[in-house]
């Protein structure tokens, strides 16, 4: 076993240890054991940092990979298949190392932050336990080398998300939200599970490596549509977890959980797991599946951005912003900008965590006031928070010199390149939606900054009857809000903000603030060669220097045969792609990469313009008040309401799926008790009726006979009873009389 594997197992199990200790013993430990959670996570982060150092800094090899597995379930010698084992294992490559470090770092920071934010809660210890199991499951996803264990940890993060969203379970809204989150994730999971089943049914293995090797060797015997379906179904897992349309509805509601949880789970790590998963299965996605993914990502990015501009709850704005950014990542994967999407995943994790923690600091300072309309002027009271929040906002909006700029730009460049490579038309919709969302992002973030930090405090403006229902759980001290002085938060909440803000600066990732591709990240994370579709031909002419070593072995063998399908032809129409500094096994990917490279600067220009446009719009509306936002909202009221009510998705789902299920269940239950049971009881009834008919026959005919018999017996008995004296001797005499009679009969017979 490689030493890195051993270390990663330690990293994986440490948070579980934290969970087990804290869930059972938190009440017996001093401070409810929070130091234990923080300490264990600190250790885990230290080890992860060492792994990161070893893999990324020391080795610095794009093809780095160590793997280890063990037999989990041994099915013996299965008829028709032969020996079959279900294996579990760990794989460490560059992506894993980066994710490991990122997850443990953010988790550590959130643990630290929570010691301040959650102080005094009655379930304080349990909270840290839940954080522990979440971190464990998330690390499990990151380290898994097969679909089965990824599915296991996938559901486990769903569980921990469920537990943490419903942490304040006395609130009905929190209980609703946790159920909604779990069920929405479940819907996504069954898609993912079906995708896994398609692959398993073909290859009888869950391991990524073996599935890819088999796919590349052309052992997939079902039709290509099934493979596309497998890709899309697996992507459904991502749709659920990363809150993509149409399953995005749970994420904003998930903000009912404690704010650090929102930062950790619902912004930085868990929701990004969907993107991570799609990246893991990227090589088996067919072009058709990728198109679906790209469109869903683009649509989600756009839709969430339009919703975000009208929300008033500070966390909801950030939640929709998260959905929107996740849409970007998915879009990036869909268009083939693999490294860009993952780059955005990492940068987004840091600046969004910073934003959420910052909003948590604000909410904490404002005594659980979450409505931005009643904030304002916090800049002076909370300088640290203001500074970090603003920096993260700039990164989110994608202004140059921030990390967000580089990653978002790379994705958008990829989108343009994709549209060019696919031959335009409807595919241009993707970059257009992307750019438009970028502008909206800048706008709503500008609005938020202004509403929260600038101007004068509007706490007193809050109408007394406009209490957010969710706030009732926190006591009825709203009336005294104005009297409270707003203070900067304590150091343990401030330090995470600063660290995360620092990690949102470009220099951490790339020396060139305009081009992320020059940074270490994009160099370490290369687009892997696809194993499906067009990979089966064209590739022979390309020099094979793929990141996946298995490809170099299997590709020559499959190069000979090749079925042509339309996406491949579409690519070849555009001429043979030139070999760029990236080397791709696959012509389509190479084409997109090349086009994306060409579109790098246009993308920078366009997105910068869009961002500036967005910010200036925000300035115009909220700072200079040239346009009164309220009046504008009045004039375009249907649109405003459409956005404010989140495109009515909740209502639509409520009316269709939820009501439908409930009604259907009522119907089936009725069916069960009345029809099926009715049939059973009916049969019983008929049998009973037959029995009654039989009975009347019985009564008058059969019973008549019986009664007559009884009567005659009765009469006879009455006569014969005279002979029953109860005296033993009478009986003896009768006996003797009979014997005597017999003798008489005997002798008379002798005589005659």
């Amino acid at each position: 076993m490689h030493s890195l594997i051993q270390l990663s197992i330690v990293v994986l199990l440490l948070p579980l240890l934290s969970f087990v200790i804290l869930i059972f013993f938190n009440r017996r430990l001093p401070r409810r054991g929070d130091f234990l959670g923080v300490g264990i996570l600190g250790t885990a982060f230290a080890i992860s940092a060492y792994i990161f150092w070893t893999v990324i800094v020391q080795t610095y090899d794009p093809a780095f990979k160590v793997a280890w597995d063990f037999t989990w379930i041994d099915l013996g010698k299965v008829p028709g298949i032969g020996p079959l084992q279900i294996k579990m294992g760990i794989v460490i490559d560059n992506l894993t190392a980066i994710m490991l470090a990122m997850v443990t770092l953010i988790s550590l920071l959130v643990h630290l932050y929570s010691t301040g934010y959650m102080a005094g809660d009655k379930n304080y210890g349990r909270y840290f336990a839940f954080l522990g199991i979440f971190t464990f499951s998330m690390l499990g996803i990151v380290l898994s080398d097969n679909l089965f264990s990824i599915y296991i940890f996938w559901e486990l993060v769903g569980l921990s998300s469920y537990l943490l969203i419903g942490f304040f379970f006395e609130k009905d809204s929190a209980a609703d939200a946790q159920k909604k989150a779990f069920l929405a994730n479940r819907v996504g999971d069954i898609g993912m599970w079906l995708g896994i089943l398609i692959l398993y049914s073909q290859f009888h293995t869950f391991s990524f490596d073996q599935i890819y090797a088999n796919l590349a060797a052309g052992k997939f015997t079902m039709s290509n549509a099934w493979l596309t379906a497998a890709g899309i179904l697996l992507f459904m897992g991502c749709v659920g977890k990363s809150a993509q349309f149409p399953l995005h509805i749970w994420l904003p509601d998930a903000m009912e959980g404690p704010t650090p949880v929102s930062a950790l789970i619902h912004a930085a790590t868990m929701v990004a797991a969907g993107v991570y998963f799609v990246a893991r299965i990227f090589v088996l996605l067919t072009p058709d599946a990728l198109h679906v993914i790209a469109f869903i990502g683009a649509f989600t990015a756009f839709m969430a951005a339009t919703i975000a501009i009208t929300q008033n709850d500070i966390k909801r704005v950030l939640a929709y912003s998260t959905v929107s950014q996740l849409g970007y990542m998915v879009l990036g994967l869909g268009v083939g900008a693999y490294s860009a999407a993952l780059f955005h995943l990492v940068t987004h994790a840091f600046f969004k965590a910073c934003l959420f923690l910052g909003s948590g600091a604000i909410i904490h300072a404002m005594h659980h006031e979450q409505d931005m309309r009643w904030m304002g002027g916090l800049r002076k009271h909370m300088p640290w928070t203001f500074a970090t929040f603003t920096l993260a906002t700039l990164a989110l909006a994608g202004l140059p010199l921030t990390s967000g700029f580089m990653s978002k730009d790379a994705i958008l460049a990829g989108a343009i390149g994709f549209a060019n490579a696919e031959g335009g038309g409807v595919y241009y919709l993707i970059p257009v939606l992307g750019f438009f969302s970028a502008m909206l992002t800048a706008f709503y973030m500008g609005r938020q900054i202004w509403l929260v930090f600038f101007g004068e405090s509007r706490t007193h403006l809050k109408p007394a009857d406009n209490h957010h229902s969710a706030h009732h759980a926190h006591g009825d001290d709203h009336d005294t809000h104005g009297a409270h002085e707003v203070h900067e938060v304590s150091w343990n909440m401030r330090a995470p903000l600063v660290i995360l803000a620092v990690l949102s600066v470009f220099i951490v990732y790339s020396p060139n603030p305009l081009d992320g591709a020059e940074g270490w990240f994009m160099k370490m994370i290369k687009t892997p060669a696809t194993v499906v579709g067009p990979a089966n031909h064209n590739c022979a002419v390309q020099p094979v220097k793929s990141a996946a070593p298995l490809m170099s072995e299997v590709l020559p063998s499959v190069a000979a045969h090749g079925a042509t399908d339309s996406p491949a032809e579409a690519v070849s129409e555009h001429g043979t792609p030139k070999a760029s500094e990236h080397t791709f096994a696959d012509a389509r990917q190479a084409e997109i990469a090349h086009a994306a490279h060409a579109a790098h600067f246009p993308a920078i220009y366009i997105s910068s313009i869009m961002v500036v446009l967005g910010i200036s719009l925000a300035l115009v509306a909220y700072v200079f008040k040239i346009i009164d936002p309220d009046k504008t909202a009045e004039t375009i009221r249907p649109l405003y309401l459409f956005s404010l009510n989140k495109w009515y998705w909740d209502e639509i789902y409520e009316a269709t799926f939820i009501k439908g299920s409930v009604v259907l269940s009522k119907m089936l239950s009725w069916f069960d008790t009345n029809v099926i049971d009715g049939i059973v009881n009916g049969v019983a009834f008929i049998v009973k009726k037959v029995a009654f008919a039989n009975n009347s026959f019985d009564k008058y005919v059969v019973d008549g006979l019986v009664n007559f018999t009884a009567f005659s017996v009765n009469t006879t008995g009455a006569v014969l009873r005279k002979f029953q004296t109860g005296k033993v001797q009478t009986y003896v005499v009768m006996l003797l009389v009979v014997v005597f009679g017999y003798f008489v009969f005997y002798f008379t017979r002798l005589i005659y």
Partner: protein
Amino acid sequence: MSNLTYTVIFYLFAAITVFSAAFVVFSRNVIYSAFSLLFTFFGVAALYVYLSADFIAVTQVVVYVGGILVLLLFGVMFTKSIMNTDLKSDVLHIVPGTLIVAGIIGALLYTFYTTHGWMPSETQLHGSVVERIGFETMSHYVLPFEMVSILLLAALIGAAFLARFDKPDNKKS
């Protein structure tokens, strides 16, 4: 022992048996009945000896005289008003009873003396049969033997159960 002596002794015992049996039945006193029953049993035992069944004879003496008769005597003594009971039953009076019994005895005797061929075999039992009884008991008749022993046990327990005194205040005799 000469044949004549043999015959005389047989008739003697036969007479003892029959007459004491008659006395048992017709006596007015239960005690007398019981004592004359003693003679009946002895007579029967003697007849058994004549029938080459010496073991059975001994058993007859031991069981009947030593057991059953003593039991009957105890019964007589336990039920103290027994002496006062009129022996005559009102179910059947002496005369018709005598008639029926005489009829049955007559009929039996008539049958005995008119039937021939009672004896299909010419072989007779001679001497003592004790050894054969032992063999037969342990081989051919082992099951009835065991069953009888169980029955006896059950009867003993049952008798003890039936005859026990339920309550102290019921102790009459």
